[in-house]
């Protein structure tokens, strides 16, 4: 399909969507219309743009996706395997729509709010209205614009000042729609006020093996001295398209730890942009991607050091098999006044087949002069000498390779402090390993 054709398609979807919206603040309506206009003018990104050079999204722009239907109630037994440890607090979205039966928010402590974005907007939550779409810029690219135009439902988390909640909250986005060419555009807004603490899991799973398009945008706003651990677990169908934007803003003395797991998707792109907008901030980004078949897994991260005395650490690893492709782009942007920045980045890749490829690209943009920035990227195969060593002890070759892959991935999964979750993720990784290869 021609690009203009697809722009018209989403314009007509938007008109229909707007007609059906019966309420909403005028400001939000204005923002939606601005976003669809931006999309109509600019469309989807092309490989001529530097940030999209390695990822051709034409498979997405060639399909006329329709909004996914609100399904009948989901059997809660089907989601239990995706909830780890304590599940006292969770929001479940099925095909983009909140599923109130499966969601539980009854036992939350005072000061912790977990509700659907629709509910938050309907109740005129001041913080939600003030922060929504203020951080992830709609003019960043067509995907963010499209999500912004179609903002309707999603998750809203608000942690009041001084409230600490260590057990992870679950935000579960499930696609059950077996129909082809459906689209979901979840929106997540997380606000953590000063001195507060939050751990949250954002998880995308599929109970259908269909070609759908998930286009989430998440904004996380972190106050002074607050502490946030964020897990993204992406397990979309192997035929699905997943394009996610994650925008994080931190104030002084706060910390943010991200664990980003990319397992599914035909094309799975995550753009993560973390802004360190105060002194004494700690930021750690951990990432693991496993790609097989013809998957394309693309992680673009930007860490923006705006103020002095901040630390950032980034550890991304990937295993690629068959004809899978991965892209890693890690930008560290140190502003002129961000002296004493200490930034470290590493990206390591394990390649299991001749045809798998990785494009890894560190980008350092440093405008301050008193900084410590290191980065390193490696692409390698499983070490033959190690395999021989394991085999020489009686361990079969396939199992030896699995052990090596497990060890490689384990260096990321071991970084999860929550015991139940760490074991759960390690199990998922193990489930992908099969006879010295990634499971097809």
């Amino acid at each position, binding site marked *: 399909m021609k690009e203009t054709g697809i722009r018209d398609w989403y314009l007509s979807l938007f008109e229909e969507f707007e007609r059906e919206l019966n309420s909403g603040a005028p400001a939000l309506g204005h923002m939606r219309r601005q976003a669809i206009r931006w999309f109509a003018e600019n469309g989807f990104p092309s490989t001529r743009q530097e940030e999209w050079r390695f990822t051709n999204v034409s498979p997405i722009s060639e399909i006329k996706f329709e909004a996914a239907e609100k399904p009948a109630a989901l059997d809660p037994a089907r989601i239990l395997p995706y909830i780890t440890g304590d599940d006292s607090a969770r929001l479940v979205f099925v095909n983009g729509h909140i599923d109130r039966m499966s969601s539980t928010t009854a036992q939350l402590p005072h000061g912790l709010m977990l509700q659907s974005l629709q509910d938050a907007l309907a109740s005129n939550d001041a913080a939600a209205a003030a922060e929504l779409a203020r951080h992830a810029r709609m003019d960043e690219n067509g995907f963010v614009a499209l999500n912004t135009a179609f903002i309707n439902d999603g998750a809203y988390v608000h942690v009041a000042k001084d409230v600490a909640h260590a057990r992870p909250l679950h935000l579960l986005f499930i696609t059950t729609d077996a129909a082809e060419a459906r689209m979901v555009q979840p929106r997540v807004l997380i606000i953590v006020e000063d001195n507060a603490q939050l751990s949250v899991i954002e998880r995308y799973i599929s109970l259908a093996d269909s070609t759908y398009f998930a286009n989430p945008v998440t904004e996380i706003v972190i106050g002074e001295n607050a502490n946030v651990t964020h897990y993204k677990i992406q397990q979309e169908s192997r035929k699905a398209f997943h394009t996610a934007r994650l925008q994080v803003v931190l104030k002084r003395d706060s910390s943010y730890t991200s664990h980003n797991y990319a397992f599914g998707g035909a094309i799975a792109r995550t753009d993560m942009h973390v802004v360190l907008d105060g002194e004494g901030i700690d930021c750690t980004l951990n990432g693991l991607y496993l790609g097989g078949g013809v998957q394309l897994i693309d992680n673009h991260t930007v860490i923006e050091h705006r103020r002095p005395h901040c630390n950032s650490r980034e550890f991304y690893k990937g295993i690629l098999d068959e004809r899978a492709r991965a892209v890693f782009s890690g930008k560290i942007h140190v502003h002129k006044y961000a002296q004493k920045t200490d930034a470290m980045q590493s990206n390591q890749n394990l390649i299991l087949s001749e045809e798998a490829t990785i494009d890894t690209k560190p980008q350092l943009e440093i405008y301050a002069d008193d900084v410590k920035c290191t980065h390193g990227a490696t692409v390698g195969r499983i070490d033959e000498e190690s395999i021989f060593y394991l085999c*020489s*002890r009686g*361990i079969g*070759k396939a199992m030896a390779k699995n052990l090596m892959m497990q*060890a490689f991935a384990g260096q990321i999964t071991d970084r999860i402090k929550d015991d139940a979750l760490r074991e759960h993720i390690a199990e998922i990784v193990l489930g992908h390993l099969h006879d010295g290869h990634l499971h097809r």
Partner: protein
Amino acid sequence: MLSIKNLHASVDGHEILNGIDLDVKPGEVHAIMGPNGSGKSTLAGVLAGRAEYSVTEGRIDFLGKNLLEMAPEMRAREGLFLAFQYPVEIPGVNSSYFLRTALNEIRAHRGLDKVSALEFLKIIREKLELVEMDEKFLKRSVNEGFSGGEKKRNEILQMATLEPKLAVLDETDSGLDIDALRIVAGGVNALRSQENAFIVVTHYQRLLNYIVPDFVHVLYQGKIVKSGDKDLALHLEDFGYDWIKEQNGGQA
């Protein structure tokens, strides 16, 4: 137990072993000595099944089976063990998990039940004592960050745990101080029995004061050029390898 006949092996087209004959019977300890580059590690590697060596001639029988047809893991399961000259560091693979997996693979091959984590702990504690290693090593990744001596002791620990019928020790003594040497030798001696055998590859006679061999062979330019009893090792200690080189047309 082991019978090597006219073994020729090459790497990248260079012949490194050219006609080795060796017979090892249960209960025996054979020492293989020789100058650097004479092919000792190559012989050990061919026995363990290193892929980079190709055997161009000859055969090896191990407990009545054709060893060269077996994959490295099958050789281990049949009862062959190689203590590496340079043990490999494997970050992220837990020592305890690795060794229990290996033990269970070998036990399964012998028709024995798997050992649980708890049973394994009982077994391994006894073996750790033998090589004077602390239990905390089990929590670490295989050989990662181990000192040279710790790596060698870890090889002996693995050998003691897997209970091979034939163990090949490739310069396990090199680079060890006298205490570590004593521990390694003590480990080997504790395992010696009428049912198993050892091939001890060494560059120095010193180890043979602790592990007394039944036979000593001198390997030079890929051939066993001299065999004798433990006195041959003493002679080499006194006179070095030059006389061997001269007798065999090499550069002294």
